[in-house]
């Protein structure tokens, strides 16, 4: 066995580990192990002070391997790889051992057992580290161009941002016209500008930029290529049915949402005078003076909130759409400006006019609109009486559960956003779809527009219900993400990928078939012998191919067969 110089750091995690594991005993147990040069414990190994201590140890003792036994590798692998890099140690000669999620938190009732397990886990980490070889990231050149799918307000604004930061843009829109839902909107809060006006302005800006190629009636029909060098096929319909191929470095999905469409009979939907909020907004926006419906002036309106939202256990739409309370209250004020005498009743579950939108809610109340609160188990009932009068009955929770009957000219169902049906695009890009049907980011706070699919980001309301402003903000976040990735012209990829030993490979094809990323191809060696070859830029290092190889010719770097066997032997040492 080779002589190695390994540093081992056992973390207390401020009690998260040390309350249930005797970390000092763990340290003592491994301190005398072969190849261990330094063994320490620390209150918080991730603290700046301890990180610097590790850097000093690595330099002073010329360490060539590092083990930190602390929390999940998901949290701090990159932290301690950074420590290694700063000290001049190859970052892939670092192993993180999970003593928290996989030991202390799981065995809070068994200190002795947890301590014994910790010793074995740390020894397994040391066993792997002994065998780790230095690795260097795979470097790929990237194409300075992005594909934006969907030319609504988020996609249009993202395209402009990308062009201004110096990236080429392919902007595609499935419909004949750009602008999506915002194009249909009238006066918007707080700047009082028309949706159509905003879209025209953005479209003008798009046209002014040579770096943006806009295709309407267009769809993505294929994605190929590798990280930073994707090939996309765009098909346009209409007069010119044709498919064009582009190379892009990143893809931004901005496909938007659909409005919830109530079922026939849901809160009276289908009865004349019962409208959804988007339908009603169009009427109000189009009205020059006092609102007229069916040749009669509208004197009273009842809004019913949360239609198709917050449906509870088992419902397809359990989430709150966030924007609809504000949109309904804003529409109330728009109507008040045109029909000041109209009585407006709002039947809500919980009022969620967050942030500055609260001011709209105050304004609406103080101008005289009435707000009634209903419980989800006693929803309002809508019917048309024999005399043709629309009637809404509701139990008002803000008074003593009074049953109130509202005779109104119009009932407005305040509907939310639902995910758009986009099955083909989801399959082509392998987009991650959440349980609510919207697309998922990697981390809602730290990586809010990236997806688990390399090179693909999401923005706008395809991710979750958003206001126009929030959609644009996420679109610009996707621009920054693209720029950070593509402006350097090159990207570093994780080198922990699968490799084939050509001396052992017989090219049976098992690995090629199993690879979910299409990373494994065929290569001819001298003498016409065929072997498998793995593209390191496409491989994700999942390891799915390695156990299938009958010749044991495939190893994942950083988790080679020898390394994994050494870990298992160490974990099981002394167990009969």
């Amino acid at each position, binding site marked *: 066995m080779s002589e190695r110089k390994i540093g081992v750091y056992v973390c207390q995690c401020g009690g998260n580990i040390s309350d249930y594991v005797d970390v000092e005993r763990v340290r003592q147990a491994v301190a005398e192990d072969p190849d261990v040069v330094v063994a320490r414990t620390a209150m918080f190994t991730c603290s700046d002070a301890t990180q610097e201590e590790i850097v000093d140890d690595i330099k002073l003792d010329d360490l060539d391997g590092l083990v930190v036994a602390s929390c999940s590798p998901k949290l701090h692998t990159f932290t301690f790889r950074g420590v290694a890099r700063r000290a001049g140690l190859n970052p892939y000669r670092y192993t993180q051992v999970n003593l928290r999620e996989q030991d202390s938190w799981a065995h809070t009732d068994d200190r002795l057992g947890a301590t014994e397990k910790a010793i074995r886990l740390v020894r397994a980490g040391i066993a792997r580290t002994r065998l780790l070889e230095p690795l260097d990231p795979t470097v790929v050149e990237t194409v300075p161009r992005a594909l934006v799918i969907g030319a609504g307000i988020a996609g249009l604004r993202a395209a402009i941002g990308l062009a201004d930061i110096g990236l080429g843009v392919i902007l595609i829109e499935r419909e004949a016209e750009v602008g999506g839902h915002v194009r249909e909107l009238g006066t918007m809060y707080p700047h009082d500008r028309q949706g159509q006006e905003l879209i025209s302005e953005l479209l003008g800006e798009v046209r002014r930029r040579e770096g943006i190629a806009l295709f309407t009636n267009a769809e993505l029909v294929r994605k190929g290529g590798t990280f930073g060098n994707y090939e996309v096929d765009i098909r346009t319909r209409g007069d010119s049915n044709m498919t064009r191929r582009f190379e892009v470095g990143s893809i931004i999905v901005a496909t938007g949402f659909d409005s919830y469409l109530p079922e026939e009979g849901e809160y009276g939907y289908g009865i004349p005078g019962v409208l959804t909020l988007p339908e009603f907004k169009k009427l109000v926006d189009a009205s020059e003076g006092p609102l007229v419906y069916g040749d009669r002036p509208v004197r*009273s309106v009842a809004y019913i909130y949360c239609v198709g939202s917050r449906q509870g256990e088992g419902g397809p739409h359990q989430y709150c759409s966030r924007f609809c309370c504000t949109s309904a209250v804003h529409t109330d004020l728009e109507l008040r400006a045109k029909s000041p005498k109209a*009585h407006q*009743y709002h039947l809500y579950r919980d009022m969620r006019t967050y942030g500055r939108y609260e001011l709209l809610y*105050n304004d609406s*109340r*103080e*101008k*005289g*609109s*009435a*707000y*009634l*609160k209903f419980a989800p188990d006693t929803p309002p009932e809508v019917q048309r009486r024999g005399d043709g009068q629309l009637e809404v*009955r509701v139990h*008002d929770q*803000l*008074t*003593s559960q*009074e*049953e*109130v*009957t*509202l*005779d109104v000219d119009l009932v407005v169902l305040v509907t939310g956003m639902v995910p758009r049906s986009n099955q083909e695009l989801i399959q082509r890009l392998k987009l991650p779809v959440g349980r609510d049907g919207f697309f998922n980011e990697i981390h809602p706070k730290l990586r809010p527009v990236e997806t688990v699919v390399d090179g693909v980001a999401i923005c706008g309301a395809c991710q979750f219900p958003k206001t126009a402003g929030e959609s644009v903000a996420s679109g610009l976040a996707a621009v920054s993400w693209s720029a950070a990735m593509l402006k350097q012209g090159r990207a570093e990829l994780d080198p922990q990928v699968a490799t084939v030993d050509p001396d052992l490979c017989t090219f049976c094809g098992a690995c090629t078939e199993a690879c979910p990323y299409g990373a494994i191809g065929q290569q001819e060696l001298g003498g016409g012998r065929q072997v498998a070859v793995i593209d390191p830029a496409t491989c994700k290092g999942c390891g799915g191919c390695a156990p299938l190889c009958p010749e044991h010719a495939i190893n994942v770097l950083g988790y080679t067969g020898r390394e994994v066997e050494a870990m298992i032997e160490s974990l099981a040492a002394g167990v009969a």
Partner: protein
Amino acid sequence: MTAALQPDLAERVGMDPSFNPSACMNCGICTAICPLGLRHLPREVFAYVVLGMEEEVLQHQEEVFSCLLCKLCEVSCPAGVHITENVRALRHYFDRNVFHLEGR
């Protein structure tokens, strides 16, 4: 029983321009803090006015006149409702419409 609504009730009650029951956001602090433990005044009675439920307002005459106008609720109100002024406006409404004390 289903209530009959009088949509102009708030205007008829609110002679005083500072009458602002619709500023109420229904948090309920006023009811919780009332030293007399008035259950319906001010929040619910104000809600009846805003909704136009005149019958229900009339049923709470005793509470409207029991209020001490101590303002404990008003200084605690997060929505800036002029509670005592509103109660006085309600008293004027009773004076005019129930006791027919014109000119007061």
